[in-house]
């Protein structure tokens, strides 16, 4: 029996209106940045309907000529390396944590969660002092190590939850066939845990890609990552809004296909991380 009364229709319309309003809240700022990136500096401070024909590609050209593309490359190199390092070291560790019979697992899970939640300002103070002495300020190695303090606890934690969903029988069956534990991990467990692995890799990359704080403190100019390089367009004298808009889009674009493609895996993984 479907309710077709007027009251029900009004309620339904209100529901749709509310959803539309929030859709606007989510989408309009993105549209705004797209418009901003194509507006000439002369028309920035007037409403669009007063100069509806003023469009330019100058902002994109000036970004292409600036240091920003190099900073994007720095972001790719450091976030990518740190994620690879974290996966390489973290996945076998997570497998052992999940399948080994041990009693101190609670401590390990608390520690990993704590490291994931600890304020970065705490990590960065000692790192900065050591880096100044060791000559690691403004180097790829320094930044990759710093990012690994974010990505490694995350990768171990999330792969641990993924491996927990792989039945122990699968491991035992592989061992019965005479395979070594390493082979079982590589040939059986990792393929079975692929959704979790994709999500862990993607989210760990984003964790480093999104970083602003570490890069702000321990890079100077050579290895500055894109999020910090954007701030070059902001100065006390003037703010280059067009360039900022283009840079913000450039910063987001690589993430969008990742989020869209890995959406399903990420939801599973986040759900797992939240529910345990």
């Amino acid at each position: 029996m479907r309710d077709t009364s007027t009251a029900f229709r009004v309620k339904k319309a209100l529901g749709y209106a509310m959803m539309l309003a929030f859709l606007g809240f989510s989408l309009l700022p993105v549209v705004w940045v797209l418009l901003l990136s194509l507006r000439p500096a002369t028309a920035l401070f007037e409403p669009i309907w007063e100069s509806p024909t003023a469009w330019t590609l100058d902002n994109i050209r000036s970004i292409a000529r600036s240091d920003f593309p190099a900073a994007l490359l720095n972001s790719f190199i450091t976030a990518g390396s740190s994620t690879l390092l974290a996966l390489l070291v973290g996945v076998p560790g997570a497998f052992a944590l999940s399948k080994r019979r041990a009693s101190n697992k609670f401590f390990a899970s608390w520690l990993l969660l704590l490291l994931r939640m600890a304020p970065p300002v705490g990590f960065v103070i000692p790192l900065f002092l050591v880096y100044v002495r060791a000559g690691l300020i403004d180097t790829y190695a320094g930044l990759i190590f710093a990012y690994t303090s974010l990505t490694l606890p995350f990768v171990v934690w999330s792969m641990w939850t993924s491996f927990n969903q792989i039945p122990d029988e699968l491991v035992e069956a592989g061992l019965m066939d005479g395979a070594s534990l390493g082979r079982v991990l590589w040939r059986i467990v990792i393929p079975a845990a692929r959704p979790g692995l994709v999500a862990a890799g993607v989210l760990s990359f984003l964790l480093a890609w999104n970083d602003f704080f570490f890069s702000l403190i321990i890079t100077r100019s050579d290895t500055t990552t894109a999020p910090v390089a954007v701030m070059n367009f902001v100065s006390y004298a003037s703010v280059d809004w067009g360039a900022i808009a283009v840079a913000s889009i450039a910063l987001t674009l690589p993430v969008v296909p990742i989020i869209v493609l890995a959406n399903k895996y990420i939801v599973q993984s986040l759900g797992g991380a939240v529910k345990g």
Partner: protein
Amino acid sequence: MTPPRASAAMDRTYRRMLWPASLAVGIFAIAPLLGMLALSFTDFHLVRGWSGKIGIHNFLRLFEDRRFVSSIYIMMALSAFGVLAQVVLGTAIAVGLDKIVGKWRVARGIFVVPFAVPHVAVALIWLSLFTPTLSPINAVFAVFGIEVPALLTTQTGAITAIVIADTWATYPFVMLIVLAALQGISPDLDEAAALDGATRVKAFFRITLPLLYPTLLMVALFRFIETLKHFPLIFVMTSGGPGRATQATNYYAYVQTFQNSNVAYGASIAVFLFLFAAAISFYIAKANARLSDA
């Protein structure tokens, strides 16, 4: 069952798999945190160095420091309003999307877009929207002769602005997780409630919400921790201002360490924040252990 000798060999292999990760976590994560703890008991200054003094003077100073105490209030305001807005909005949208399928499927994808925008870009986008001379919001309202107040010039306004920007970027996270949880709840429950004559709203509050409660609590805790770490939003949108009005504790630790060169004092503020995170992560780990035992 595997024979005991084989299992001893296996245990050795497991330990071999574990040690690179343990070593790396120790070097990259635990060592810096111990360094932070050690520094917090000294009087290390970026320019003056260390006089050799060791003690709890930094921690005693914390609670006499008005700027520190007010930074806690600011942090709490940002976290409380932020988490509340994100959880309520994320849950509302998730409930809306859960019932609606078909062509609205696309809507789910659109709602997720802000989640992909890096924090610095989020901050810059909203800075542009809150800059009265630039903002299309001001332009639209000006057509109707309404002057929109400049949010970033007052404390309440600046905190509101940061909460709005943070909510825009992160409620999709809440939405995705609540949506996944909702899809695990059987629709039979709703139908049963409808047969009993309960209205939809009543059924939601009596049945769905209690079932969602564990998920909502975990999501809220995760978001709470993240909001304690606010940095790019404050740095870009307000620089802690107007005056010191948005210097939340995490930002204040940065100011003391890297602007005032008071490294040791900054470290003691970081230790304070760390204890916060330790308590909450302990609670979450306990809850997880209970879940996996059950």
